[in-house]
């Protein structure tokens, strides 16, 4: 991701680690936020040349690009906070599956377009609440990323909303497929709002926010879109995805990482891309 061309004298954003001791949990929390953004960016990038129309190739590519930008800043910060000094590339390309802290939602293989819009609606609604809360983070870098990203994710959320309305309140077939997609995604959303040990510690430190605090705002927004799109909120799923924050992922994750990481790992000493 970074351009390591040594001919360019560029001092990257190097805010120092705060004077107060940052716990391993807080660093892991920031890493998890970065991983969500990074892995979803990878999935969204897969749509380029596969979307139903060229404007959607560009839209989903742009949304992925915004997320990649957020991931770069968050991973860089996580590498500073955890004391290892790993940079964004090190964290993105040279960690193994169990070390990634992303939720299952973002790693699921690309479904049809309705599935992507259902996933994007939930994820962007979650991120809208997340970044609004993190704008007041005790960590100046995390707060800065959040304030910047808030505006971006509102565009993502609006984009998903527009397609939900069109497809949900469209033809019989588009309505059914949009409803199917909404049902599918419901098994993956609870993990976003689960208070694990790491997020509790991060919230206590003032750097993070309790995920459960984001649930009602995100759900309210999704519900309003679902109702307007003449769809119905699915019944609570029998099973919910879990474990992503502890590095326990679905089968799809390994394949995703293989594709995302293989060039960097094949040329670990490359200094220029």
């Amino acid at each position, binding site marked *: 991701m970074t351009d390591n061309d040594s001919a*360019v004298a560029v001092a990257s954003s190097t805010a120092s680690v705060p004077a107060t001791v940052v716990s391993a949990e807080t660093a892991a929390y920031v890493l998890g936020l970065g991983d969500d953004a990074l892995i979803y960016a990878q999935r969204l990038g897969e749509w380029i040349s596969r979307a139903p129309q060229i*404007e959607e190739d*560009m839209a989903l*590519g742009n949304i992925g*690009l*915004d997320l990649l930008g957020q991931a770069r*800043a968050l991973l860089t910060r996580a590498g500073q906070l955890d004391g290892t000094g790993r940079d964004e590339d090190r964290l993105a390309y040279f960690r193994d599956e169990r070390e990634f802290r992303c939720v299952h939602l973002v790693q699921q293989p690309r479904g049809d377009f309705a599935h992507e819009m259902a996933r994007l609606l939930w994820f962007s609604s979650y991120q809208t609440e997340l970044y*609004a809360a993190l704008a007041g983070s005790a960590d100046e870098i995390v707060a800065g*990323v959040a304030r910047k990203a808030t505006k971006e994710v509102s565009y993502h959320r609006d984009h998903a909303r527009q397609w939900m309305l069109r497809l949900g309140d469209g033809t019989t077939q588009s309505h059914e497929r949009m409803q199917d997609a909404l049902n599918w995604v419901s098994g993956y959303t609870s993990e976003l709002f689960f208070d694990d040990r790491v997020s509790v510690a991060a919230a206590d430190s003032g750097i993070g926010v309790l995920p459960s605090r984001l649930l009602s705002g995100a759900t309210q927004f999704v519900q309003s879109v679902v109702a307007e799109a003449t769809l119905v909120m699915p019944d609570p799923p029998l099973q919910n995805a879990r474990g992503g924050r502890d590095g326990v992922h679905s089968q799809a994750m390994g394949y995703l990482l293989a594709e995302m990481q293989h060039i960097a790992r094949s040329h670990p000493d490359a200094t220029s891309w």
Partner: protein
Amino acid sequence: LASGSEPASSSLLPAAADIVIRVEAHIRAVPDPEIPVISIDDLGIVRDVVVNSADSSVWVTITPTYSGCPAMRAIERAIVDAAARDGFAAYVDTRLSPAWTTDWISESGRNALREFGIAPPDASAHMTGSGAHAAGGAVSLTLQRRSVACPVCGSTDTEELSRFGATACKALRRCLTCREPFEEFKPL
């Protein structure tokens, strides 16, 4: 500077000051790589330029338009190159907060965009709420039609074709009066 050991005679000061002004002007004039009619200064992303003529260095702080904007790296390189032409070494830092907003695009920048065929973001554009009121949540669910003037004929009878354009900062629109498609700098 230690007052007792300052070697520079007063006659050197104007020259040094000239250099400082020139280097800063050259850096601020660096064009945006995606939209070369607008300088990074007019785009409003230059937060700070600190020229140090003593060691021929210049520290530049810029604020990215979008988190993932791929032009940022090109802009950093262009700044380094511009400083190098004056014999200065440039160090570029990015500052995320406060977040960049299209309100920071200068009036001359807006005119340059319009002449180039890109509708600049104007105050009325904020009425959509997409950018500014993200956290608040209260956004209407209707498919919006905003008033954006066509940069070719000036008509405000235009429609959105795609919220996402060829770069992260632009949307695609079409004029319903002169039928020209055009890009709009998205309000953020």
